[in-house]
């Protein structure tokens, strides 16, 4: 049977063959296009951001942009130093990671090494809910709940501050870190755990000394992706951290982040090709580049250290 149908196929009239081959080609190209469109969109975004911000660099030198310590493009005299915005972004992100990394890692270790099936069935959906809360809700939560709470502790805390924004942003990132890290920990083979137990280790020692390092490539890439999430987060910081660009690493200060600035300016009606309009593209370009770099590092880490066990 098989042989006869094979020889039939070989003997099939060329027209039929051509049509079949064309069909294959067509489907293949369609699949390729789908895959390529993501890449194309990414490239297009970068190109647009790049070309739109070139205008800015006709008035402002690249050096001034990257080293200037004041950001006030919409006022007279205009100042175009990006550092205050970068500083706001880094500070809020650092606070967020300070919360998200320990909590996320602990939850992941707990779920993967200690929790019974029953507990896991309960905790995971709750984390998913946390991951699904719209960021605007987190933003108001930070502004109207966390900040007043913190003001009980620190009466001098301004209504807009990086601390509340960062803390809430950290909580937002916890599910991402915990779920990615848990996946990494659960894929550590049982043989390694058994090797540790057989050496007389306790559960905690095994989790910490064997499972965690064995899963570290996945865990660390979850951290990096968490960083890029924090850097790109917009709503929470726009709502709760304030809009005043200044160089301050003090969590108790208010400050604008790169994202918050973009929101602020985009919402106003700036004329096309005005310098204010161009600044948001420049800031956007830097922002996308930063998250792109973090994402790339994250994926590289994951691949590079995969075969540790």
């Amino acid at each position, binding site marked *: 049977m098989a042989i006869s149908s094979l020889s039939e196929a070989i003997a099939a009239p060329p027209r039929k063959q051509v049509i079949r081959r064309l069909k294959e080609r067509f489907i293949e190209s369609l699949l390729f296009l789908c895959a390529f469109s993501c890449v194309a969109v990414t490239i297009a975004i970068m190109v647009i951001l790049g070309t739109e911000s070139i205008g800015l660099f006709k008035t402002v030198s690249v050096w001034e942009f990257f080293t200037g310590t004041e950001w006030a493009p919409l006022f007279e005299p205009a100042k175009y130093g990006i550092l205050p915005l970068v500083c706001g972004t880094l500070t809020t992100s650092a606070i967020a990671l300070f919360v998200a990394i320990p909590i996320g890692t602990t939850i992941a270790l707990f779920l993967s090494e200690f929790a019974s099936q029953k507990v896991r069935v309960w905790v995971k959906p709750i984390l998913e809910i946390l991951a699904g809360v719209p960021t605007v809700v987190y933003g108001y939560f930070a502004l109207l709940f966390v900040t007043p709470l913190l003001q009980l502790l620190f009466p001098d805390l301004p209504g807009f501050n990086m601390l509340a924004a960062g803390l809430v942003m950290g909580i937002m990132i916890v599910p991402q870190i915990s779920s990615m890290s848990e996946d990494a920990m659960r894929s550590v083979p049982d043989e390694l755990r058994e090797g540790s*137990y057989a050496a007389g280790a306790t559960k905690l020692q095994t989790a910490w000394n064997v499972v965690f390092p064995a899963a570290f490539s996945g865990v660390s890439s979850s951290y990096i992706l968490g960083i890029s999430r924090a850097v790109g987060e917009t709503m929470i910081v726009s709502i709760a951290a304030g809009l005043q660009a200044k160089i301050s690493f003090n969590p108790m200060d208010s400050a604008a982040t790169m994202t918050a600035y973009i929101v602020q300016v985009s919402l106003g009606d700036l004329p096309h090709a005005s310098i204010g309009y161009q600044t948001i593209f420049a800031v956007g370009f830097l922002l996308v580049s930063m998250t792109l770099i973090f994402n790339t590092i994250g994926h590289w880490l994951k691949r590079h250290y995969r075969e540790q066990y």
Partner: protein
Amino acid sequence: MINIDSTVSQAPPKVEVSNLNFYYGDKQAIKNVNLVLPKNKITALIGPSGCGKTTLLRCFNRMHDLYDGNRYEGEIVLDGQVNILSRRIDPIEVRMRVGMVFQRPNPFPKSIFENVAYGLRVRGEKNKSFIADKVEEALKASALWDEVNDRLKDMAFTLSGGQQQRLCIARALATDPELILFDEPTSALDPIATRNIEDLMDGLKKQVTILIVTHSMQQAARLSDYTAFMYLGEMLECDRTEVIFKQAAQLRTRDYVSGQFG
């Protein structure tokens, strides 16, 4: 059924197993096993695949405690003193005295040195020079020292499979266990690596009692002083190795060691 020959009891017993039953949930995998492991001797555990060799081996360090639903009955008595299956005995205490080497090498994602030091570290040992001495001693006993002494800081997975398995043996040795359990330790290795491990095994006898599961008749014959034959969860026969291989009492044992079934 049970045939504990008088010759077996000549060497002082290190471990005595009596009326051992083991259940995976409802499924009984070990049936009324009686066995003596003579001190500083190598006992080989043989039998067809699925007869319960691994299951029995893992009773000796309470490995089955790691998974829910497993149940032991009977006794495994160490040095004529403690029944290690007793509920009052902490399995971690047992594993501190009984080492294990697995079927496939399972080094930790750490340096060569830290792999061997692991057992000491989890015991809370802090003395650096003591740890360094122990690591060296264990690597020498597992015939790995000459190959790795200049690269102790390298990650363990940079070693070859055979070296990794010897590293795992060193890891088990470093804490001075009284009994070491080997579960087909050479089944994942090439003939030369296998030979290396068989060669070092004999030297270990001076320090420890050994129980080794093997599917290779030659290995059992070459290495062991005593051989125990299991079949369908039961211990059919246990005797000096030459007796099992030349004049086993049971027909099934004779068939198995002569390769009639497997």
